[in-house]
């Protein structure tokens, strides 16, 4: 009996202390931290932690520092579903993921179902890198926010900026990977043709990360004689394609989406000169303040996806500023509503959220590979020089008809 009393006293004491402490906002990073996509997953996690550190430096939220937990989804959707449940068990309020559209598809569905079943205990999904159109189309939902571009935004920015610079030409070849991203790219390249006054002289979809020799594809490109090759390829598919083109002595301009992936420029060498990229952010495009702050905090300049991921967390910080739960329970729906109305002034221009499908309206930076740039790529004399920053309102595309979003009542 004495023992029981002791337990009861202890649990009352524990309860009292938990009341004295406010509820912290919990962020779960469900990222590819082992497996083939580790290097990219790591970058997303770095940037999120950087962003959360800034929030905590400014006093945290709800009277407590924001808590971040990393979960390794090992690059697979079933594992991500598993880690999502783990995160729910840990009481996470916001989950973050960037390295894969497939995993983003899994997580947005998991979040949707969780929120249907647990009203009042919602979870918000900040999608930092899943660019598949269906995430803001068929699968669009109130608690999913996309903080990156999509294929039409990249292609429209690329073609308009290259046309202005006189580098686009009139004949365009589309080579992309055969899955939703590559298909989205191809559709966007076809769709932009009348506006920008080019003709698509050939298009091909190929296997993802399986091709070792792009020579047959280069031969097809050569016979179509384009001025520009637009590709959404990433990783080896981009590198080997550019190398094969260089080896064949083919003189075309590449318009890419992922040329800034770490190691690409160093591997491609001089072959990369003159090629274009459209992305969310480049160090040379801002005034350098953000890049320097980031370098001081993490020991390196923001690379690849780190910039725009840090902006997403900064935008969350903006949204949180207007909220006060007075140390009480976190209301995720109110955070989502605040996020919808937030605007963040990033180094390359303002970023806001489109309420209809929760796609961010954001600037797209178009850059060109040059020699001796302001920020050379690791171990080279090459790097990106910004050509044009396409403002958010010009880069955005119409809301997809397939998006039917159920908004919370009230």
């Amino acid at each position, binding site marked *: 009996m004495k023992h029981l009393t002791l337990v009861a006293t202890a649990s009352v004491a524990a309860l009292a202390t938990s009341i004295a402490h406010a509820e912290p906002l919990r962020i779960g990073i469900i990222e590819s931290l082992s497996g083939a996509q580790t290097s990219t997953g790591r970058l997303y996690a770095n940037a999120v932690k950087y962003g959360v550190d800034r929030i905590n430096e400014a006093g945290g939220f709800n009277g407590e520092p924001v808590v971040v937990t990393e979960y390794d989804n090992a690059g697979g959707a*079933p594992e991500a579903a598993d880690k999502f449940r783990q995160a729910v068990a840990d009481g996470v309020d916001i989950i973050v993921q960037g390295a894969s559209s497939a995993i983003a598809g*899994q997580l947005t569905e998991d979040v949707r*179902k969780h929120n249907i*079943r647990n009203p009042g205990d919602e979870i918000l999904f900040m999608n930092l890198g899943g660019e598949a159109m269906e995430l803001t189309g068929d699968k669009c939902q109130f608690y999913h926010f996309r903080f990156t571009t999509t294929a039409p935004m990249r292609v429209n920015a690329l073609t308009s900026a290259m046309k202005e610079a006189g580098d686009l030409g009139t004949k365009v070849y589309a080579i992309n990977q055969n899955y*939703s991203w590559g298909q989205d790219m191809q559709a966007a390249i076809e769709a932009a043709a009348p506006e920008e006054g080019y003709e698509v002289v050939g298009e091909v979809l190929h296997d993802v990360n399986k091709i070792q020799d792009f020579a047959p594809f280069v031969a097809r490109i050569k016979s179509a004689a384009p001025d520009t090759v637009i590709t959404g390829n990433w990783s080896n598919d981009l590198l080997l394609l550019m190398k094969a083109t260089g080896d064949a002595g083919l003189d075309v301009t590449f318009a890419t989406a992922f040329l800034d992936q770490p190691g690409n420029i160093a591997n491609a060498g001089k072959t990369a000169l003159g090629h274009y990229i459209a992305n969310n952010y480049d160090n040379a495009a801002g005034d350098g303040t953000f890049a320097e702050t980031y370098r001081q905090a993490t020991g390196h300049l923001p690379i690849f996806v780190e910039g725009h991921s840090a902006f997403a967390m900064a935008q969350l910080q903006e949204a949180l500023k207007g909220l006060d739960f007075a140390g009480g329970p976190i209301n995720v729906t109110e955070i989502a509503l605040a996020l919808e109305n937030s605007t963040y002034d990033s180094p390359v221009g303002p970023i806001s959220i489109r309420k209809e499908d929760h796609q961010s309206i954001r600037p797209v930076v178009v850059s060109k590979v040059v020699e001796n740039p302001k920020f050379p790529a690791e171990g080279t004399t090459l790097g990106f020089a910004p050509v044009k920053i396409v403002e958010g309102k010009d880069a955005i595309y119409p809301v997809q008809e397939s998006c039917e979003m159920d908004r919370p009542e009230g």
Partner: protein
Amino acid sequence: MMSFRSVLLLATLLALLLAVPPLLDLAWQNALVNVLIASLFALAFNLLVGQAGLLSFGHAAYFGVGAFAALHLMIAIEDGLAFPTPLVPLAGAVVGLVVGLVAGFFATKRSGVYFALVTLAIAELIHALAPRLEGLFGGESGIGSMRMPFAGIVFGSTIEVYYLTLGWVLFCGLGLYLYTLTPFGRLTLALRDNEQRVRFLGYDAHSSKVIVFAISGMVSGVAGSLLAISNETANYSLFATDVSAQVVLQTFVGGSTVFFGPVIGAAIFALFSFLVSDLTRSWVFYQGLIFVLVMLYAPTGIGGAIQHHIRHRRQLDWPALAAPYAAMLFGGLLVAAGIVFATEMVAVMFGEDYARTREAAGGALIPFELFGATWSPTGPSTYLIPLVLLGAGIAILVKVRRRIDAVWAARGEQGSKTQTLATTGGIQ
């Protein structure tokens, strides 16, 4: 037949499986669901590899089609089809059976390495095809549905999913066990031991193998559909080789020669990934290391080692074994600690974070944090500690192994002489 004691043991286990999960938190409930699904998949796989002697490297195919079949049925239920949610795994069973029949017909025309290669090829075929067939497999984002309520059960919480999974796993597990007792189950073993003889006895070896393959595919399909019910989504990554490889690892670590061996392996691996995957990024390495060590020192798997002990429990001098076994455990822990220390140290020193801090410090070999202490990359203790741990551990293991061998050899004088020393090498 089963003795009274093993019935009692099974009943206790069942009672634990029924009574304990509601007391656990969400994360553990979910981990147990994964253990159950992995166990059933491994049992189904072992029907082929352990009992029929056919090593398949492409069992993800049948697991995956089961998952997709279940999801399509769930989507139909969501759209108004009157079908009880708890029976959804039947869809996985039917599709697994059909795909298993077709694939098995071709694969079992060959045996050994060629059989393994054909199964691998079939799985890769589906893996390559699936992302193209968007209507069926939903592209790389996959297809999703929601569990619909049935007979007052909402199937919204993890514990409801757990009981549904438990029911199906027990039902199929029992079915597979009873199968081994049937004449056809005996024929399956004969196929493994001497296929030619089976043929001379007048059986059609190919048809028999196709049937075994299809049954294995069917139960794998049930396991896959249980995963689909739990995750409510599936994408084509279910067909990937690592899913096939995982079940091979689990089955062999658990022990393919014992009926319940694969369950041990599946439970160990599923719990290992649940407990360790967020602690260290090297968890896949440790998992591989466990597999290699088990294959080297206990080729019959953990289940095989346990069975070996149970079989000789009356002939062994247990008091004489207790001390060496305790020493062996201690030595094993030392080796494990040494390996973990060395691995984590390498992971830190060659990791990105450390490279960056070094860069910031102008390339100096600055100290790093690990296990709550600070270590200097140039300090002797950083290297001595894992070396001493490893060395002491290995020395203890080598020494103790001789004593254990001696005790095991002595058992022959009291009783059975059938087991030779060669197998005791597999105990450690």
